[in-house]
C-alpha cells in the first residue's frame, strides 16, 4: 500500500494544499522550539558518544549508551551529527519529533565496515584474511583517465607502476605484494563478482576497491588467485528520495619530464669536439656554428632551440563529467550514472574519449526473493598518429640539424618526424563493451539463514581498429642553388593504405550456489557453496588495402588489384570451471576459524592435469573481546590477531603447451611466384604441464585505539611459489634447435610486510585532520631455476638465490686516467686488460672480479636492483578540513629500484641520435671526474658494455595527488535549494623528487635505440578544477 501511495501522482490541488500548509506552518512554527528525540546507529547497532549539534545555535549534546539523544530545536534548523570514524551528516530537523539517523562509516573506519570478499561480504571484525579496502570516492576527483592510475600509494600491499602516459595506453601494471613468479604476476580483477577489468569504468560509479592478499582471501579463486585479487563493486541505489549528483572536472596535462636534448649549436659543438678527440677533421666550421646559434639561415641551419615546444601541445585537456541518479523505495533501489571522459594527448593527433553508462537495480521481488540487475557499458574511442608512438620518439632522436628544420620557410615538412607526427593519417581504436549481469537470490523460508543464489553475466566487447596511413612527406633542400630550392619528397609508401580489424570477444559466466548464515547462541556459522563456469571466445577479422588512388579512408575504395589487398582473422577460446566453498565459524565473535577453497579446472592443460584443489585455512582471535581486556582498557576498541595458510594456483604460462602441435603460418614462402603457407614446430610439448602452486602464509595484527582515533593493520607474509613454469632452454644445448615447452620446475619465495595506519582527529566541529599511511616491503628470491653452470658456479653471477630481475654487468671503477698508461700509450703492467679495443684515458675501467688479469664475462657481477617492481613502496596521505575547506594530499614513493640507461637514453651519438645537454660533462684531461667518458663520434664498444656506470637509482617520492576543496555552507545551500556544492582543485603527479635524470622514475629510460614502442610516452602531470553538485 505504502508503495502505491508514493507512486500515485500528486494532483495539482493536493500540491497546492501542501504548499499552503507548509507556508503557514513555516510562518507559525518558525521560531517555536520543540523537543526532538533521536537515535543514532551505524546501520545496525546503536552508537554512543555521538556529537549532535544544532548548527544555527551551536548547541548540542552527545548520545547515551543506547545511542539516544534529546535536543530542543526549532523547525528549519539543521543538525550536524558527527562521530569519529563516520561520515559527518547534516540533517534538516523538519517537522518531526523523532528521528533515527544511520551514520555511514568513513573511509578508514574498520569497526563497522562490511568488506567485500570473494563471492560474498564479511564484517571487517570477523575477517580472518588479509584484505585492504579503499572507497571509490577517494579517486573520483583525481584527474586520471585510467582507474588503475589512481590506486598507487593508497592501499597497502598494492604496487602500481604506470608505464606510459599515452591516452588509451596509460593503464598501470598492478602487483600485489611484489613479484612471486617468473611468469605472469598480474592479479585477478573482478567487477561485481565477475572476472573483468575495472580500468575503464567510470570512477564515480565505484563504491569500493578491495584487495585480497593472502591465501584465505584468494583461495576461492583457485587456479587464478595466486597473484592476488582486486575486487571492485559499483554503487547501488539507496532507499529514499532520488538524489541527483553532478561531478565533473576539467584540467590540463603536461609531461612530468621530457629528455633534455641539445640544440643544433650544441650538437655541432659536441660533434666538433668528438672529431678533435679522435684526430679527425671537424665537421662544422665556426661560420656554421654561428648560423646554428643565431638562426640566420633557418632552412639550412635550423636551431632546434625548443624541440619539445615545437612538437608537443602544452596544457592538453583532460576532463570528466558524471551525472548520477540514485534512490529507491522500500522494495526497489536504483543507481544510474552517465560518465564522459576526454583526454587529449601530447600531440594533436592523439586523444581518447570515453562514455560510461551504469545501471544497477536491486529489487525485492517477494519477501524472500531479490533480484539485482547490473549493466555497465563503455564506448571508448582512441586516436593516434598512424606512425607508432615508439617510432615518433625514435624520430625525435634524429632531429639532426643537418637533415632540415621541422618545417622549411615555405611550410613544407623538413624532418621525418614532421610528417609522421602531424600528417601520417591515423590509427583509431573504437571499443564498445558491456558488462551485464542478472543475479537472483532466494531465501529458503523453512531453513533459517539459507539462501540460494544464481548469477549469469554476459560481457560482449567489440573492438574496431582502423589504421589509415598516408604518405609521409619530407621536403629537402637543394643548397647548390641560390636562393635555395626546396623539393617536396615522400618517405616510404607513396600512396595511402588502410587496415581494418574487428574483434568480437565474449565472456559468459555462470554462478550458482548457496549461503547459510546462522547463530546458535554464541556459535556463529556461515557457509558458502558455489559453482562457477566461465567461457571466453574471441573472433577477429582483418582486411587491408594498399595503393589508394583516392584519399578516402574506406576499405572498398582502395586499389582493386588483388596484389594490393589481404585478409586475415583468427579465433580462440578459453574455459574455466570450479566449485567454491567457504565455512566460517566463530565463537562469540572472539575466536574465529575459517576454511575456504576451490576445486578448479582450466582448459590450459591436458585432460588428466586439468583439475586441482586449492584449500586455505585461517584463524582469528579478537583479544579485545576477552574479558581481561574488554571494558578494562578503555582506549582499546579492537585488537585482533589472525593467521592464514593455504595454497592457490596460477596460470603463468600459455595454454596448450601439453599438445604436440605445429603453428600454421599465413604467408611464409614463395613458390612458383606465389605466396604459400608454412608450418613450423612450436616447441616440444610437455604433457605433464600444470599450474603453478603458491603456498601462502600470512600473520596479521589489527588494532583500533581510542575509539578509532588510531587504526592500524600490519601483516607479515611469506609465499613459496613452486611448480613455477620455466623454460628449460638454458640447460639444453644451443644446437637443440627448438624451444622446449615450459616445465613446472621453478621455486621462488616472496616475503615481506605491509602495513596501514590511519588516524583522524576532530579538534572541533570546524577543524578535522587525518593522516593515513601505508607501506609495502617485498623481497623475492629465486630458490630453484634453470641455470647454466657458467653463472651458477660463479657466486657473483649466480641467479639462483637472488631476486628476480637482478641486474648483472661489469662493475665500473671510473675512468682510466693518464697515469695508467706508459708513454707509448699502452696500459701499465698489472692493470687488467679489457678486450674491446685499445683503451685511452677517459675510457671506463672495469673491475677484474676474479683477479685473472683480464676482463671477460667471468667478471660480471650484480650491478643493480630489479627494475620491474620496487622493493619498497609507500604512501602517506594527510588531510585537513577546516569549515568548508578541505585539503587532501597523497605522497607516494618507491625505493630499492634501479633503471638501466640503455644506449641512446644517455650516450651521445648512439646510432647517430641526438645527445642530451648533460653530455657536455665529458672526460677531458682537465675534467677527469666527469659524468661521461671521453667524447667520441659514436659510443665505443668498451664504454657501452653493460656496467654499473650506466645504472640509475630510481628511488622517488612524489606528490601523487592533491585536492583542495571548498564546500559551500549548508545555510547558503538552503537558500539556493540545492543539497550541496563542492568546488575543488585537484592534481596528479604534481611534484617528483628523484635522482633519475631526463626520465620519469615510473617509466624509466627503457629506450634502447630499438624502435617500435620501447621509448616511453611520459606520464602526465595533471591539474584540474572540479565541481560537485548534489541537487
Amino acid at each position: 500500500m505504502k508503495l502505491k501511495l508514493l507512486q500515485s501522482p500528486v494532483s495539482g490541488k493536493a500540491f497546492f494544499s501542501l504548499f499552503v500548509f507548509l507556508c503557514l506552518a513555516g510562518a507559525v512554527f518558525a521560531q517555536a522550539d520543540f523537543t526532538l528525540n533521536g537515535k543514532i546507529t551505524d546501520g545496525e547497532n546503536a552508537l554512543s558518544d555521538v556529537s549532535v549539534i544544532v548548527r544555527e545555535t551551536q548547541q548540542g549534546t552527545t548520545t547515551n549508551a543506547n545511542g539516544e539523544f534529546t535536543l530542543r530545536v526549532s523547525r528549519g534548523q539543521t543538525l550536524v551529527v558527527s562521530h569519529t570514524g563516520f561520515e559527518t551528516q547534516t540533517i534538516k530537523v523538519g517537522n518531526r519529533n523523532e528521528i533515527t539517523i544511520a551514520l555511514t562509516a568513513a573511509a578508514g573506519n574498520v569497526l563497522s565496515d562490511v568488506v567485500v570478499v570473494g563471492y560474498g561480504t564479511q564484517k571487517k571484525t570477523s575477517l580472518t584474511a588479509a584484505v585492504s579496502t579503499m572507497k571509490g570516492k577517494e579517486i573520483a576527483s583525481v584527474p586520471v583517465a585510467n582507474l588503475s592510475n589512481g590506486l598507487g600509494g593508497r592501499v597497502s600491499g598494492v604496487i602500481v607502476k604506470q608505464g606510459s602516459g599515452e591516452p588509451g595506453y596509460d593503464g598501470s601494471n598492478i602487483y600485489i605484494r611484489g613479484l612471486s613468479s617468473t611468469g605472469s604476476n598480474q592479479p585477478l580483477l573482478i567487477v561485481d563478482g565477475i572476472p573483468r577489468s575495472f580500468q575503464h569504468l567510470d570512477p564515480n560509479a565505484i563504491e569500493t576497491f578491495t584487495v585480497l592478499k593472502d591465501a584465505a582471501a584468494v583461495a576461492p579463486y583457485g587456479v587464478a588467485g595466486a597473484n592476488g585479487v582486486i575486487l571492485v563493486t559499483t554503487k547501488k541505489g539507496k532507499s529514499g528520495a532520488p538524489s541527483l549528483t553532478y561531478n565533473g572536472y576539467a584540467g590540463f596535462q603536461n609531461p612530468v619530464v621530457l629528455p633534455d636534448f641539445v640544440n643544433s649549436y650544441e650538437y655541432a659543438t659536441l660533434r666538433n669536439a668528438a672529431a678533435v678527440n679522435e684526430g679527425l677533421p671537424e665537421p662544422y666550421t665556426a661560420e656554421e656554428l654561428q648560423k646554428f646559434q643565431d638562426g640566420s639561415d633557418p632552412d639550412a641551419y635550423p636551431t632546434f632551440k625548443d624541440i619539445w615546444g615545437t612538437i608537443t601541445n602544452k596544457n592538453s585537456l583532460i576532463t570528466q563529467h558524471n551525472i548520477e541518479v540514485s534512490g529507491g523505495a522500500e522494495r526497489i533501489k536504483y543507481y544510474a550514472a552517465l560518465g564522459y571522459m576526454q583526454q587529449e594527448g601530447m600531440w594533436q593527433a592523439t586523444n581518447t574519449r570515453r562514455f560510461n553508462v551504469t545501471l544497477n537495480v536491486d529489487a525485492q521481488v517477494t519477501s524472500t526473493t531479490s533480484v539485482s540487475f547490473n549493466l555497465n557499458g563503455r564506448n571508448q574511442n582512441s586516436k593516434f598518429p598512424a606512425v607508432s608512438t615508439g617510432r615518433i620518439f625514435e624520430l625525435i632522436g634524429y632531429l639532426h640539424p643537418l637533415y632540415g628544420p621541422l618545417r622549411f620557410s615555405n611550410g613544407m615538412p623538413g624532418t621525418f618526424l614532421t610528417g609522421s607526427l602531424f600528417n601520417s593519417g591515423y590509427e583509431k581504436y573504437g571499443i564498445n563493451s558491456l558488462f551485464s549481469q542478472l543475479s537472483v537470490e532466494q531465501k529458503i523460508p523453512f531453513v533459517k539463514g539459507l539462501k540460494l543464489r544464481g548469477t549469469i553475466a554476459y560481457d560482449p566487447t567489440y573492438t574496431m581498429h582502423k589504421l589509415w596511413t598516408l604518405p609521409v612527406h619530407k621536403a629537402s633542400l637543394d643548397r647548390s642553388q641560390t636562393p635555395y630550392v626546396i623539393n617536396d619528397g615522400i618517405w616510404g609508401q607513396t600512396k595511402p593504405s588502410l587496415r581494418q580489424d574487428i574483434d568480437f570477444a565474449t565472456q559468459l559466466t555462470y554462478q550458482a550456489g548457496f549461503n547459510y548464515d546462522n547463530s546458535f547462541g554464541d556459535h556463529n556459522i556461515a557457509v558458502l557453496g558455489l559453482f562457477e563456469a566461465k567461457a571466453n571466445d574471441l573472433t577477429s577479422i582483418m582486411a587491408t588495402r594498399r595503393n589508394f588512388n583516392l584519399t578516402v579512408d574506406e576499405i572498398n575504395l582502395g586499389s582493386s588489384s588483388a596484389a594490393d589487398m589481404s585478409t586475415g582473422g583468427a579465433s580462440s577460446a578459453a574455459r574455466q570451471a570450479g566449485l567454491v566453498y567457504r565455512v566460517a565459524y566463530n565463537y562469540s565473535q572472539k575466536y574465529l576459524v575459517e576454511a575456504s577453497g576451490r576445486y578448479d579446472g582450466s582448459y590450459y592443460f591436458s585432460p588428466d592435469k586439468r583439475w586441482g584443489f586449492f584449500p586455505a585455512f585461517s584463524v582469528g582471535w579478537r583479544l579485545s573481546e576477552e574479558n581481561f581486556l574488554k571494558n578494562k582498557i578503555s582506549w582499546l576498541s579492537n585488537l585482533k590477531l589472525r593467521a592464514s595458510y593455504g595454497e592457490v594456483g596460477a596460470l603463468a604460462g600459455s595454454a596448450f603447451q601439453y599438445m604436440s602441435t605445429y603453428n600454421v603460418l599465413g604467408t611464409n614462402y614463395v613458390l612458383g611466384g606465389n605466396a604459400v603457407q608454412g608450418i613450423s614446430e612450436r616447441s616440444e610439448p610437455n604433457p605433464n604441464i600444470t599450474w603453478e602452486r603458491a603456498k601462502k602464509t600470512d600473520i596479521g595484527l589489527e588494532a583500533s585505539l581510542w575509539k578509532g582515533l588510531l587504526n592500524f593493520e600490519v601483516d607479515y607474509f611469506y609465499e613459496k611459489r613452486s611448480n613455477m613454469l620455466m623454460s628449460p632452454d638454458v640447460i639444453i644445448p644451443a644446437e637443440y634447435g627448438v624451444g622446449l615447452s615450459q616445465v613446472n620446475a621453478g621455486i621462488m619465495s616472496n616475503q615481506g610486510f605491509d602495513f596501514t595506519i590511519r588516524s583522524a582527529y576532530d579538534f572541533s566541529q570546524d577543524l578535522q585532520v587525518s593522516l593515513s599511511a601505508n607501506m609495502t616491503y617485498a623481497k623475492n628470491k629465486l630458490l630453484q631455476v634453470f641455470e647454466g653452470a657458467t653463472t651458477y658456479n660463479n657466486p657473483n653471477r649466480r641467479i639462483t638465490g637472488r631476486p628476480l630481475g637482478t641486474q648483472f654487468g661489469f662493475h665500473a671503477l671510473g675512468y682510466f686516467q693518464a697515469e695508467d698508461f706508459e708513454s707509448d700509450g699502452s696500459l701499465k703492467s698489472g692493470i687488467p686488460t679489457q678486450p674491446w679495443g685499445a683503451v685511452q684515458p677517459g675510457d671506463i675501467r672495469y673491475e677484474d672480479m676474479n683477479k685473472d688479469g683480464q676482463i671477460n664475462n667471468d667478471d660480471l657481477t650484480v650491478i643493480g636492483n630489479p627494475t620491474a617492481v620496487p622493493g619498497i613502496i609507500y604512501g602517506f596521505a594527510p588531510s585537513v578540513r577546516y569549515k568548508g575547506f578541505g585539503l587532501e594530499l597523497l605522497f607516494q614513493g618507491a625505493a630499492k629500484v634501479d633503471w638501466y640507461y640503455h644506449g641512446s637514453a644517455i650516450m651521445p651519438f648512439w646510432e647517430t641520435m641526438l645527445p642530451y645537454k648533460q653530455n657536455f660533462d665529458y672526460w677531458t684531461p682537465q675534467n677527469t671526474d666527469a659524468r661521461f667518458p671521453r667524447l667520441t663520434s659514436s659510443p665505443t664498444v668498451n664504454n657501452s658494455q653493460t656496467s654499473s656506470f650506466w645504472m640509475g637509482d630510481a628511488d622517488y617520492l612524489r606528490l601523487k595527488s592533491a585536492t583542495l576543496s571548498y564546500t559551500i555552507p549548508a545555510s547558503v545551500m538552503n537558500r539556493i535549494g540545492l543539497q550541496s556544492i563542492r568546488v575543488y582543485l585537484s592534481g596528479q603527479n604534481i611534484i617528483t623528487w628523484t635522482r633519475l635524470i631526463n626520465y620519469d622514475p615510473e617509466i624509466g629510460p627503457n629506450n634502447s635505440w630499438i624502435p617500435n614502442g620501447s621509448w616511453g610516452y611520459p606520464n602526465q602531470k595533471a591539474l584540474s578544477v572540479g565541481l560537485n553538485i548534489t541537487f
Partner: protein
Amino acid sequence: MKKQLFKISLNTIIILSVSFSFTSCKKFLEVVPTNQVSDLTLWATQDNADLFLNNIYASVPTLETGDPWENFSDNSLNGQAGRVSTNVYGPGIYTPANTPNKWGQYTNIRKCNLFIERVTASSLPEDWKKVRLAEARFLRAYFYSILWTYHGGVPLITDVLNINEQGDAVFRARNTSEETASFIIFECGAIEADLPVTAQSGRVTKGAALTLKGYAELFNASPLKNPSNDLARWEQAATTYKKVIDLNKYSLFPDYTTLFYEESNNNVEVIFSRQHLGGTSLANYIGQIGPRFVNGSLTGWGHVDPTQDLVDEYAMANGLPITDPGSGYNPQKPYVNREKRFYESIIYDESIWLGATMIMKQGVGSLNATDLNNSSISTRTGYYVIKGVNPKYAGAQDNGNSANWIIFRYAEVLLSYAEARNEATGPDQSVYDAVNEVRNRSDLPDLPAGLNQADMRKAIARERRVELAFEEKRLPDLLRLKLAETKLNGTVHAIKIDIVGGNTVYTVVPAGGGAKVFDPAKNYVLPIPQSAIDKNPNLEQNPNYQ
C-alpha cells in the same frame, strides 16, 4: 504465496540447469586451438607435409640489410654507426661473448632433421618422398655449409634431438672441419640424382646440389683447409663445377643490372635463390643498403658503402686493370672510362641516381659529402652501392620489392670452375672460356693469352671480386684463400674530393671507422658463441679464443 512458489521454481531451474552443466564440465574444458595442427594431421598428406618444407625454405637466410656480411670484408663499410661489422668484427675485438655468429642455423637444421625423420617414417608416396627428402637434405647441407664456412667443424646432428629420450646424448661434441666438409659433399652427391634439373621456382634443383657440392670442395681445396695443397681437392671441385656447366641448363643473363631485379627472378643464370614477394611480409628490403640522400631526401640507409679498395679493382673499359700502365687510368679523373660493372654497381661523385646528381664533394653543403669524421650521417667512403637496388624500390621503407636474393648463380660457377681448374692443372682453354664468358657479358675483352698459372690466379681473383661484389662472397674468399690477414688488417679507404682553385682534387684517405685488425692465429674462424659453450660442455672452443 503462489507468486513466491513460482519464483522459487524459476530459481531452481536456473540453478539446476547450471549445475547440470557441471556434469559435462570435462567436455566444457575441451578447447581445441585453432591455429595449430597435430603431428598426426601434418604428416598424413603430401600437401600438409609440403607446408613444413615451405617453412624450411623460408628459413634460408636472405640479405640482412641492417649490416650485410659484405661489410665484414674489405669491399664495403656500413654507413650507420654502431654496427657489428665496424664496431666489433672490423677492429677484431670480438670475443665468444659478443661474436657475430651463425649458430642459429641449428634451428633450421632441426627443421630438416624433423622433416626427414617424419617423412621417411610416413607412408606417403615414394616418388614424392624421394624428391622432398632430397630437397630437405640439400637445405640441411646448405645450413651446415654456412656454419662450416665461418666456424669450422661443428657438431653434425642428423637426428631430431629429444632430451626426454636421449638424455645427455643431446650434448654433442664438435666434428672436425674435414668431417663437416665431407658430410656436406657427401650429402650433395647422394641427392643430386634425386633432384630434377628443372623444378618449380623456389625449389632446389640438381644444379643447386652440384653447386653447393662444388662450393664445399673449392673451399676445402683452398689454402685455409688444404695447407699441403693436395691438388686432388682442386680437381674434385673442378669436376663438380664442370658437371653444373654440362647440365646445359644455365647461361649468363645478358644484362648485369637487371639480373638482380624482380623482373628477372629465377632467370637462366640463377641456380639457387631465396624468394621474395613484395607487398607481403616476404618483401625484399635491399633498398635500405643503397644511397642515403637523393635530392636531399633520405632514401636508403647507406648500409653498404663500397671502399676505394674495391673501386680500384674495377677494370678500365678496355679490360685492363687500373694498375696496368697502359690502362689509361687517371687518378684525378677516376670515374672516366671504367668498365660497365662499375657504373652498374656503384654511385660516385657526380653520378646520376634516380634523376639526381649525387655529390660527394666536401664543402658544398652536400648531405652525401664523404664522412671524414665518423659522424655516420652520409657515406663513409664517398661511394654508395646500387647493385641490386632497383630504382623502383630505392626507398628504405619500400616493401614492394619482390626481387629474390641470389645465393648461387652461374657466373660464380664459371669463376669457381676456372679457379679450381687453374689450380689443379693450370690455365687451359676451359679456364679462359669460363672467365671470358663472364667478362664478355660486361663488354670486357678476353683475357690476354699465355697467362701463367699465377697471373691467371690473379686475373680470376680480380674478376671474382668485381663480378660477385656485394653478394656476400668476398669474406669466404678472404678466409679460404688466407688473404684476410693482409686484407683485413690496417685500414680500408675512402675518397676525399675537394675543390681547390676551381679544380676537383681526389685524395684517397683512410675511411673513418674502417680500421681493421685480423689475428691469423684465431680469426680465420669465428669463436663458438659463449652462450652455446655455456650450455654444452662438450663443445670445444676454437683455438686462441680464451
